[in-house]
């Protein structure tokens, strides 16, 4: 059932992708690993960047939440600044996840997070501090990183 639902969601997302998001399988034979390309939303320091987001679906999906990580380095309070690039999404926490949530919603939520980071829910405390207290500096670095890593 899980794979059927995933296939269905994939078809939907491929057919009518949400704005700024394109979806494909990382490997045609593995429906549980997705490659998502996310355009930095306008009005954010990530604008014009193109970020690779890796979406990993557990076999128990949709009863367990997918996990989302950034394959592209990004300067963001809610994305770990390491090679994993894990993203912390409230709706993906085990106790918050609802099987009725769809991947499209997850991706849109993730993209929205690029516009409005949630410093109170941050995984990178330093960046969160900066975002709250020195927004200009944060914007600057984020833009710089975007240029550096996301515009290749």
């Amino acid at each position: 059932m899980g794979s059927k639902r995933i296939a269905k969601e994939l078809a939907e997302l491929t057919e009518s992708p949400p704005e700024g998001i394109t979806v494909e399988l990382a490997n045609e034979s593995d429906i549980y690993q997705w490659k998502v390309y996310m355009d930095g939303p306008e009005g954010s320091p990530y604008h014009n960047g193109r970020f690779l987001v890796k979406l990993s679906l557990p076999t128990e999906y949709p009863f367990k939440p997918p996990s989302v990580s950034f394959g592209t380095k990004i300067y963001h309070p809610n994305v770990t600044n390491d090679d994993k690039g894990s993203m912390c999404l409230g709706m993906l926490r085990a106790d918050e996840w609802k099987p009725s949530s769809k991947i499209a919603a997850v991706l849109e939520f993730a993209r929205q997070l690029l516009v409005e980071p949630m410093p109170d829910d941050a995984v990178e405390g330093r960046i969160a501090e900066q975002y709250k207290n020195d927004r200009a500096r944060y914007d600057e670095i984020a833009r710089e990183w975007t240029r550096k890593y996301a515009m290749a």
Partner: protein
Amino acid sequence: MSASVSASASSNFPSDARSGPLRRLSQLRAYTQNHFSSQSSSSSSSTSNTNSQQPIARRHTFSSRVSWFSPASSASTGTESAHPPVGTNNPAPCPDSEPSSSTLARYSSVLFPGYRGFDLDLRSQNRSSESSTSPPSSHEPRRTQTQGRMARLRGLSQTPDTRPEVDTTPASAPTNLQNGLLDCPDPVTNENSSSSPRPKQKATIRFFPHQDSHGNSRPSLPFIPISRTLPSESSVIKVGRYSERDGLPVANPTEPSDAPVGFKSKVVSRKHCEFLYLNGQWHIKDVGSSSGTFLNHMRLSQPNMASRLYTVKDGDIVQLGIDFRGGEEMIFRCVRIRIECNRSWQQQPNEFKYGPHTESLIKNLGKGETADYSGCRECSICLGSVLRPYQCLFMAACAHVWHYKCVSRLIHTPDYPMFQCPNCRAYTDLSAEVDDSNDYEEVEQKPTSTEEQRDSSQDRRSETRTPQLETNPTPEASNSSQDSVDALPNSLSAAAGLTHDVGTMHLNENRTSRESDDETPRVANPSPVVTGSIGIPVPTASALQCRQAQLRADTPVRSESSDDNPLTPRNDSGPLVFDGRASMS
């Protein structure tokens, strides 16, 4: 609980030689007895009847024996009055004005300073029942009737020393009571006012076990979800340590109940806290627990000190006590309760039925043309249409629908019988008893609707009645005489067409069983109810006993309703019953 009197219902109705209070008492008693036996006897078709008629009929119907206690119930009245929100004993001129007033709350609130008040109550009940019988207005009254029944029962139990008199004061008394006494201005008024809104909106609260999701804390005491619907606004739900003496706890009575809630943990005090419903809002109050009551992590009072009232909202977490010895042993674990209250479905049980409701949902199943039905168009698990051949569906109480196969793993979890809707997160207790009271509401909402409904309602009434009622054919003979009373039941039953059916009897029995379930909790914890300041004064042990006596009489079917549900042990009344008997003897 000194003496209990058992009267064979149908058998004795001697003329009541007694005058005044005794007579009234006897009347009441007879009355109540009838009610008991007939339970929902309210149904008589004739609308305009005087009160007297019905009681008589009940009398006849009364096959079961009622045992009475004349306990401390009277004392309870005083305490009651203390509570502000509760509409207690204000004299109400006309019981008739509000049929709905017959609700339990009323009764409970109307204690007997004098029997008179009691009589009045009965009368109001009668009326309500009568009104219900009249076809057009039928829906509401029914409901009230059921409530009234319970109230009556309690009232019976409360009436202190009536029993001997009851035996002596037989048939004539009832009429007198109804005619004269009933007419007297009564204490009931306030109750009426308070009770009237009730049918629409019952105060319901549910307790779910809560595990702190933030990992550091230890697991709290597991328990079965508990729900309570207050029989009256003045009711208080007492929470404390579970005690074997209290008998088996009834987690989820079908009908209104303020049965105490017990937890098997030593960190819970015997009298730990109370939940009450004031001004449309649930409140919690620590009643002097030793290890504390915590509302959203805030301790309400110092050890052994009672707290003030705190409002409780849906989703609040209430913790009883603190883990002792690390909480490694189950018995030392604190209790964490997630409160569910004031949900719209509780306030308007019919919402699903007649809003975007079950019926229409089913009609629109799979179509999902409007947003209202989106939840029943597509299975949110597999994202496929719910209408697929050979697929069983599962519809939660929130009216969301899935393929059973898809949602089954969310049903059969360690939390079963709790089910959390994956769409809206609403919790449902899958073991909750089927609540037939909705049927009444249905009727209310669609009064004119179909003959079928009417019939069903009538059937219900008939169900409640005891078989004996059927005896007299004259349905319409209304007022005054006992004969008329007899007639009423007949008419009802006739309308139902079930009169002679054994089936009816079964139904009746079921009904009684249900009631018994409700009452049982009381039985389990008679003392708290009586003693509690806020508590409903009426339903003390005596009432319970009456009930039980009834049950005994009706026993056969009783089990059916409760059998399926492990949460409501039928048994709960058992030990108490015995107690009652002992006291009787």
